[in-house]
C-alpha cells in the first residue's frame, strides 16, 4: 500500500510541475537565480543518489562489489562511452567481482 501511495504522490507531483511550466506566463521563472537553482538541484540530487545507491545497504555504509561497478561506469564515462556501455560496464564488473569474491 505504501508503494502505491508513493507512486500516486510522485505521479501527481511530476505531472503538476510539467503542466505548471506550460501554463504559467512566460517570464515568471526567467530570473537568472531561479534558472541557476533549477539547473543545480538535479546535480545535488543525482550526486547524492549515486553515492547512496552505490555505497549504502539500508542505513549502513558499505563498500562492496557495487563500488567496483560504479568505478567501471566512471571510467567508461571518461572514455566517452555510449550510455549502454556505461551501464553494462557497471553491471558486468559488479557481477564479476561478486562471482570472484563469493
Amino acid at each position, binding site marked *: 500500500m505504501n508503494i502505491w501511495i508513493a507512486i500516486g504522490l510522485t505521479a501527481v507531483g*511530476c505531472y503538476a510541475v*510539467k503542466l505548471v511550466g506550460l501554463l504559467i506566463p512566460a517570464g515568471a*521563472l526567467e530570473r537568472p537565480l531561479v534558472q*541557476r537553482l533549477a539547473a543545480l538541484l*538535479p546535480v545535488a540530487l543525482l*550526486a547524492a*543518489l549515486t553515492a547512496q545507491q552505490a555505497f549504502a545497504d539500508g542505513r549502513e555504509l558499505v563498500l562492496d562489489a557495487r563500488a567496483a561497478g560504479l568505478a567501471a561506469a566512471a571510467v567508461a564515462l571518461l572514455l566517452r562511452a555510449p550510455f549502454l556501455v556505461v551501464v553494462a560496464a557497471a553491471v558486468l564488473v559488479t557481477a564479476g567481482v561478486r562471482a570472484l569474491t563469493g
Partner: protein
Amino acid sequence: MAVGLSGFAFGVTSAGSGLTVLQTCALSLLVFTGASQFALVGALAGGGNPFTAAAGAFFLGVRNAFYGLRLSQLLALPRAVRPFAAQWVIDETTAVALAQPTRRSVRIGFTVTGLTLYVLWNLTTLLGALGAEAIGDTDAWGLDAAGPAVFLALLAPMLRSTTERAVAGIAVVLGLGLLPVLPAGVPVLVAALAAPAVLWAEGRRRGRTDAGAQDDMPEEDR
C-alpha cells in the same frame, strides 16, 4: 535508443527493488520522467517512507517545469490541449523541439518524439520488469549497479564547472554522512540543499548574486 535501454534498466531495477510488475509499469505510464522514477524505487528499496521517497522524486522532476516554460513559447498550444501535452514535457522532447526552425516543425518534433518515447519507455519497462522476475536474484547479476550507473551517466555531463562539482561533492558527503543518523529518504533531501548553499556562497563571493548567474539558455522569441 538510449531511452529504450534506460527503460529496460528501470524495469529491471524497479522489479529488483521489490516493486511488482504492475507498480513498475504504473510508474512509467504515470510519472514518465526517468530520473524521478529511478530515485523513487531506490528510496523505497532503501526503506524510505512514501512521502520522503516521493519528495526526492518530485524535486528531480522540477526541472521539467522549466522545460515546459520554454516549450509553451515555442509550441503556442491552445490552453485546452496543454494538459494532454504536459506528460511529454521531458529532457528529450525539449531538446528535439528547441532544435527545430519553425513552429510547425517544433510541434511535429515534440509530438513525434513524445509519442515514440512514451511507447518505447513503457514497452521496455515492461520487458525489464518481466525479465527481472524471470531471472530471480537480480543482485547476483550485478543489476543493482544499474541504478547508480544510470544516475552517474545523467550526472556526468552536468559537471561542467567548479560550481556543479562543488554542489555534487557536498551532496555526496551529506547524502552518505547523514544516512546512518537520519530516517531513510531524508538525507537525499538534505543533500539537495547543497544547490542553494553553493549558489548563496557563490553570490556572496561575487558580492552580487545576479553577476553569478550564467544564462545558458539561448534567447529566442518566436
